[in-house]
């Protein structure tokens, strides 16, 4: 069995990707049209595509996208601040680690989507409770990555700095922090894509009609407009892909040196 393949060129990859998407869409269209998959209410690609075009032409929908993005960003920022600080401290200070281990293990499995409605009740409608729901879901990957990052800083690097007479603060700022940053960022990347899903889901399940989820909600109160729902869902998905792509680029640009850690 061959384990190593020459990497495909960028162009081949793009072409294959397009072929994959077009093929999938065609198969889905065919399967639904021929009734192979019992038909009513399922997302027929052509119909959903048409709805996507309608949606994107609708200024109101763009406002909702904006709301979702702002809500998601607020949540991600909250999660990052809490996750990095708490996670970093847990990684660096054993006492703090034992103090917070139990609560973290208890709170982590709680589905944020289930806690969200409570936040809405306690904090009121609007963006904050939704963002907090997002933050609650995003926090764990960031927290754990920060914790492991703070712990995993190469002891040889730290010893080197010590022989170079770098002060304690200097080691923290010049060695520990830069060494840990890429892993923290990986946590943020993972969290970001989870966060967007949670953002839309939260709007959908207990929002007040705003955001992409809110749009889906309102669209679905109109009798049997399922294609609109599917279209908005698809747009949310594509948005997620874009966000992931942007973050991956930032990662490559800012932390290209990470390759140096791969052993």
């Amino acid at each position, binding site marked *: 069995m061959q384990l190593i393949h020459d990497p495909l060129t960028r162009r081949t990859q793009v072409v294959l990707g397009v072929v994959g998407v077009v093929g999938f869409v065609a198969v889905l269209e065919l399967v639904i049209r021929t009734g192979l998959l019992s038909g009513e209410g399922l997302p027929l690609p052509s119909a959903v595509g048409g709805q996507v075009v309608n949606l994107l032409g609708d200024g109101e929908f763009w406002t909702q996208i904006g709301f979702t993005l702002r809500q998601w960003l607020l949540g991600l920022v909250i999660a990052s601040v809490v996750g990095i600080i708490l996670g970093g401290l847990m990684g660096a200070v054993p006492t703090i680690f034992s103090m917070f281990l139990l609560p973290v293990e208890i709170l982590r499995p709680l589905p944020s989507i289930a806690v969200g409605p409570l936040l809405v009740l306690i904090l009121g409608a609007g963006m904050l409770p939704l963002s907090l729901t997002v933050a609650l879901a995003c926090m764990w990957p960031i927290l754990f990555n920060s914790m492991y990052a703070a712990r995993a800083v*190469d002891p*040889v*690097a730290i*010893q*080197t700095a*010590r*022989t*170079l*007479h*770098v002060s304690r603060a200097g080691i923290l700022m*010049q*060695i520990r922090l*830069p*060494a840990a*940053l890429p892993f923290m960022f990986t946590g943020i990347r993972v969290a970001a894509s989870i966060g967007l899903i949670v953002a839309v889901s939260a709007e959908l399940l207990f929002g007040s009609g705003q955001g992409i989820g809110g749009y889906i909600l309102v669209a679905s109160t109109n009798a049997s407009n399922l294609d609109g729902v599917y279209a908005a869902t698809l747009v949310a998905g594509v948005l997620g892909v874009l966000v992931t792509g942007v973050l991956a680029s930032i990662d490559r640009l800012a*932390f*290209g*040196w*990470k*390759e*140096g*850690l791969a052993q």
Partner: protein
Amino acid sequence: MTDHATETPAPAELVLDEISKTYGQNRAVGNISATIPAGKVSVIVGPSGAGKTTLLRIITGLEEATSGRVLFDGEVVNGVPEGLAMVFQDYSRSLFPWMRVEDNVAFPLRRRTSKAERAQRVEEALKAVGLDGKGRLYPWQMSGGMQQRVAIARALACQPRLLVMDEPYASVDAQTRAELEDLLLSIQAQLDITVLVVTHDIDESVYLADRIIVLSKPPSTVAEVIDVGLARPRDQITTKEEAEFVHARAHVLRLLRGTATPDDASDVRVA
């Protein structure tokens, strides 16, 4: 390299006084006493696991000895002494992957020198190890041998009084290795510093050393201290063809094999 070292301080002398080190149950260093003379090149050789790296960590104050003490110019070492620079065995991990090569080399000079002087020293150090023009690369964009040379350049740029190196040439090819050995000798002579090198290569130990400290199997003690009288400056080819060289290396080899006999040491002065 030396132009800026206008007021070179005196080289440091190092004394190891009955050093031992135990990790849990595991005795890494038995009981070691030795003197690393000022302004000379001393080389430690010994089998793998003999505690050479551990000994260097103790000397540089990175670790505390279980018993015994290290005297640096007559003062007990307690923390990392001033004027010391070290090249780690694990060179790839001791370079900072988020800094470019030039920043890695300049790093210890921060806050000590002006920006202009720093830039110049970095350039000189990189040139000395044959890496001029590679300063903008990241360490991981270089081959293993090149990385090791960056680590050496960083130590040189510090213009230390005591230079400690742990298997500095393990990953470079024979040719570069020879060049780096000669570079070390010439810098040592120019700057008049104390050098302490750990190596697995017996040829190298004899070629570099004024004094060779041979360690026994763990828990290690000093098996023998050999003063090498080969003339300086040395030459990779002619020095290695000299009879004293050939016999000294055979002697060290026998020591390490545990088969040394007093006769073998006839042509080297035993300290």
